[in-house]
């Protein structure tokens, strides 16, 4: 297999945007092309677009072709859309990786885009309900927050994890987001604010949840030959893993405090990269809810099972700790425009590993991980490394 690298990346402003679906594509696409002056749209031979529900939110399907035309790309080797709920973006990066590694493509943009906010706020909540099982979950009034709340309650009961631990994840990620001009929330948050925020589904409060956000992100993925011609600082894809335990909650591991699929996805990626958890300098993990970040620390091997709460409390997932987790502000601070999230995670790691992350820079970051999930039982992990 050929080596594959990220050579460019760009992110739109995330938030409640007065922008159309196509505006968001333009914004992220332009930012991405601006990051790598040697690439013109017609130089790309492929495009993959991660997007979950434009049929509902923008009354639009046929997404990859729309985006290609909007950005002046003429795919000759690969054109596709990926839909894998919240992990759609990273699943798209894996497609581009596989095509390039196999020699079927050379230079591919992966773009994630989602326009979630609707004139009626309730419609956005209703739309999010398409991500859980219609007949067995949504029918009970189950949406995403309660799923993760069930995991949080188990984690508290088994390991003594506290509401304060969840609150500290919220504080950390909102604080990180305050240094990210593209984040949805940029005011930071104190522990009192987080623990005093509205209860959504116990024990998860508003500031422990990611918001409904519009946004887009793009990266350019290249073969080794193209990467070396385009930049002196390619960010190599060194490992990747994906694993599924199931779709319905009842198909998952009996104990929701354990996410074996994430452990397997992480182990596959580490094995492929020849790296270990202790080698990771920076990680973008899927903190759709605070509990998810705590379980990610554990299943990705940053700490032992059950110690995720203590890990954040001791500052080990922040600057100066073992691994800086979610320097861009995570899903909680940046927002979670589904298909865009995984691509924005990759864009952050790309900037971090090139030393271009500005106020958010993790000193001398050499190895970065991204973790994107779609529900508690489906996980995708990528490992990136600089030269």
């Amino acid at each position, binding site marked *: 297999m050929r080596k594959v690298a990220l050579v460019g990346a760009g992110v739109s402003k995330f938030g409640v945007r007065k922008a159309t679906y196509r505006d968001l594509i333009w914004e992220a696409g332009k930012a991405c092309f601006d990051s790598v002056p040697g690439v013109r749209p017609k130089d790309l031979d492929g495009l993959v677009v991660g997007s979950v529900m434009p049929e509902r939110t923008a009354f639009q399907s046929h997404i990859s072709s729309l985006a290609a035309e909007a950005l002046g790309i003429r795919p000759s080797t690969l054109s596709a859309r990926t839909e894998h709920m919240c992990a759609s973006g990273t699943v798209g990066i894996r497609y581009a990786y596989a095509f390039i590694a196999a020699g079927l493509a050379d230079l591919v943009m992966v773009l994630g885009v989602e326009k979630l906010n609707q004139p009626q706020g*309730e419609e956005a*909540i*209703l739309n999010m*309900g398409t991500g859980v099982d219609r*007949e*067995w*979950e949504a*029918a*009970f*009034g*189950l*949406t995403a*927050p*309660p799923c993760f*709340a*069930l*995991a*949080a*309650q*188990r984690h508290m*009961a088994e390991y003594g994890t506290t509401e304060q631990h969840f609150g500290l994840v919220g504080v950390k990620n909102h604080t990180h987001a305050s240094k990210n001009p593209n984040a949805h929330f940029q005011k930071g948050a104190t522990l009192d604010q987080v623990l005093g925020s*509205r*209860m*959504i*589904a*116990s*024990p*998860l409060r508003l500031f422990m949840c990611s918001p409904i956000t519009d946004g887009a992100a793009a990266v350019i993925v290249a073969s080794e030959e193209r990467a070396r011609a385009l930049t002196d600082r390619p960010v190599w894809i060194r490992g990747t893993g994906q694993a599924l335990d199931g779709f*319905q*909650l*009842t*198909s998952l591991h*009996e*104990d*929701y405090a354990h996410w074996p699929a994430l452990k397997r996805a992480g182990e596959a990626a580490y094995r492929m990269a020849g790296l270990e958890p202790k080698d990771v300098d920076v990680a973008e993990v899927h903190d759709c809810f605070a509990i998810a970040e705590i379980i990610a620390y554990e299943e990705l091997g940053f700490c032992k099972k059950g110690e995720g709460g203590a890990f954040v409390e001791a500052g080990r997932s922040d600057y100066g700790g073992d691994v800086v987790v979610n320097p861009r502000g995570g899903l909680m601070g940046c927002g979670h425009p589904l298909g865009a999230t995984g691509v924005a995670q990759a864009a952050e790691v790309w900037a971090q590993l090139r030393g271009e992350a500005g106020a958010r820079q993790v000193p001398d970051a050499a190895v970065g991980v991204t973790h994107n999930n779609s529900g508690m039982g489906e996980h995708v992990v990528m490992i990136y490394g600089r030269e």
Partner: protein
Amino acid sequence: MTLKSFFEGARDGRLTAVRCTACGGLAIPPKEFCPACGKRGWQAAPLSGSGTIASYTVIRVAPRKFAPEAPYALAQVRLAEGVSILGRIVDVPLDRLAIGLAVKFHPLVRGDQTGIAFGPA
């Protein structure tokens, strides 16, 4: 066992799993292929309806259709036969909810719709 027959039984107060005729594995809700052995042969397996709460949450911000009912509780219930299912919790004060609390199947019937729910044991 079809979805229709599952819910018709539930409506009458009977919670029914399916048992694989090849390996004996038990599954709920009904499935097409056995998660354990992959075979496709099932027999209906009536359950006692008794179980304990494995995890729960109280939903305070609910989708529009359920908003008038909030706050309401939802739980993962581990049934006496060893399988788990999600359901609403009814007739249990929210401050009495706890992991390990014994509960009993209690269909939630609204017009022509039947939901899975559990009430006091």
